[in-house]
């Protein structure tokens, strides 16, 4: 019997390998191999069935394709909303941290939208921005009937509407992160500063904010990654990427190129580009998590 001759540590290691194997197979089969395939297919003419090697010409074509640049530009424009997607939750977290009467209920309410699908939030946002929607009612009510718009219907404003919705969807998660960060702040520090005569703003600026820096970094990374890879549901139900290409981001461009136009190879190539972008951001996150140890 072969098993008899295994030493104890060999048996432990064998168990370790066997235990890790299913997970490893899943990750290799459904994540690692597809990355390799995507790289390969990006050099081919591919419709999902037949592949023809065409070398780098897909790449040169892609970089001459204005759709790609539009999508990248849209992503870049959306990045401008990131400061708000961080600042607003930070402010809300600081308010919650004052622990005013009923703050726990407020906390639960603020986080509640986190549980809802972005499909649903997108549908609701559509109601908000629609011509007979809430936004225009508000504008009307405050006497600004003149500026009533259909934000989702216009190329110049649709991306902004998407950005606003994105900010709303991130509020819960980021507030949660910042609140956790604030909870780890030693109150005696603030107290000491107050006794030293520091004003509120100075305390926030010089004590609270530095303490939160790691949480802000993490929230930043998570927000940017969400921006590149989680807007699909919102775009799908709110604008379908339009009007024109006004709200087509990288991830939506991949979907459209692959599944609406059937250009699998080009879509795979766009996937690689998206992978490189999020990978760069991801490395930052790994270092944030890792630097903890």
């Amino acid at each position, binding site marked *: 019997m072969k098993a008899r*001759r295994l030493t*104890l540590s060999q048996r432990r290691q064998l168990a370790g390998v066997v235990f890790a194997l299913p997970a490893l197979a899943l990750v290799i089969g459904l994540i690692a191999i597809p990355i390799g395939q995507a790289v390969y297919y990006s050099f081919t003419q591919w419709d999902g069935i037949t592949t023809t090697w065409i070398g780098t010409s897909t790449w040169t074509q892609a970089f001459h394709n204005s759709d790609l640049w539009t999508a990248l530009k849209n992503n870049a424009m959306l990045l401008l909303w990131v400061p708000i997607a961080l600042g607003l939750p930070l402010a809300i977290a600081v308010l919650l941290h004052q622990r005013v009467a009923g703050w726990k209920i407020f906390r639960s309410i603020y986080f509640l939208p986190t549980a809802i699908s972005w499909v649903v939030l997108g549908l609701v946002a559509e109601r908000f921005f629609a011509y007979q929607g809430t936004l225009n009612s508000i504008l009307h009510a405050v006497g600004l009937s003149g500026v009533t718009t259909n934000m989702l219907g216009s190329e110049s404003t649709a991306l902004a509407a998407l950005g606003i919705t994105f900010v709303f969807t991130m509020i819960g998660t980021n507030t949660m992160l910042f609140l956790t960060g604030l909870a780890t702040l030693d109150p005696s520090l603030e107290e000491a500063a107050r006794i030293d005569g520091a004003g509120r703003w100075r305390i926030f600026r010089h004590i609270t904010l530095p303490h939160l820096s790691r949480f802000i970094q993490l929230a930043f990374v998570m927000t940017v990654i969400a921006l590149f890879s989680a807007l699909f549901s919102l775009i799908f139900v709110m604008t379908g990427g339009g009007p024109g290409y006004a709200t087509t981001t990288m991830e939506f461009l991949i979907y459209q190129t692959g599944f609406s136009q059937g250009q699998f190879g080009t879509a795979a190539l766009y996937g690689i580009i998206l992978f490189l972008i999020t990978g760069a951001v991801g490395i930052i996150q790994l270092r944030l998590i890792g630097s903890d140890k």
Partner: protein
Amino acid sequence: MAAITFDGVTKIYAGKPAVDSLSLHIDDGEFMVLVGPSGCGKTTALRMLAGLEEITSGALSIGDQVVNNVLPKDRDVAMVFQNYALYPHMSVAQNMGFALKIRGESKAMIAEKVRAAAEILRLSDYLDRRPRALSGGQRQRVAMGRAIVRSPQAFLMDEPLSNLDAKLRVEMRLEIARIQRLLGVATLYVTHDQVEAMTMGDRVAVMRDGHLQQVATPQELYDRPANDFVAGFIGSPPMNLLTTRVSHGADVTLDILGQTISVPTRYAAAFSLPASGEVTFGIRPEDIVIATEGLRARVERCEALGAETLLHLSVNGPGASQHLVAKTGPRTSIVAGDDLSVTFALEHAHFFDVASGATLRAAS
């Protein structure tokens, strides 16, 4: 129940031996204490016996079976961990019965064995509690209980008392020894505390830097330490070790920093002393007697412990001094700064080789 034999067992971590060719035999039913300073390889030796650590070389047997590659569960040994390692999600009764349950014993049988063990350990009132709701001493007893319900081939205990306070430790010392004798299971008990070793073990194995120094009964260790390390490790306060220059006349003469003491031949005869040169002279604090004449020393410090007093003495010579601790009775009038003379109960003297530290006692 079975005997245990370490035969040249070695464990190497990253090129450095933690246990170096350990050979040790534990008789069936014997209480063997493995003692030594922290980091000397005691835990490693115990874990190799439990099957939790690979043996680098040598052979380890339980009964007449070599168990080097036998899985822990097939070794049938029970272990008590330093931090108890109780299962936090199980009650006391479940903790104690778990090993039996794994072996597929009947519910009634398990309940009966747990009940009996709880009786011995005075845990009967706590069987439904979770470990978290127990005191340190009770947790320790549950850990014991987990071992004894199994009636294993051997008990392995790794510093099981080190997390208890002093009073409880003394109590549990007796308790564990009592239970072990009651059950008659071969036991390897690891501790760094020589008092535990001396009070609990049938025999004591002293280890240092992965090497076994001596295996003997507590009395033998005290009376005939195999080397200066054992001499200094066993006994509290430890044996005094003085470097002396030896010469032979009518008696054997020792020169300590210019002062001499003579050792009657009838006492020196038990040792094979060199004709000249240095030897380490060992004398226990309790074998030092304050006298009107003898070795002159100065009292550096007095420690009154109640029942006895420890005197820290220095023997001063030209440009050098040697330190000595003596034990005297209570309520002494001696104070620091006094000069006094001491003599030695030389029938209890020890001699060690200066270089190797080995005893010079002639093999009897």
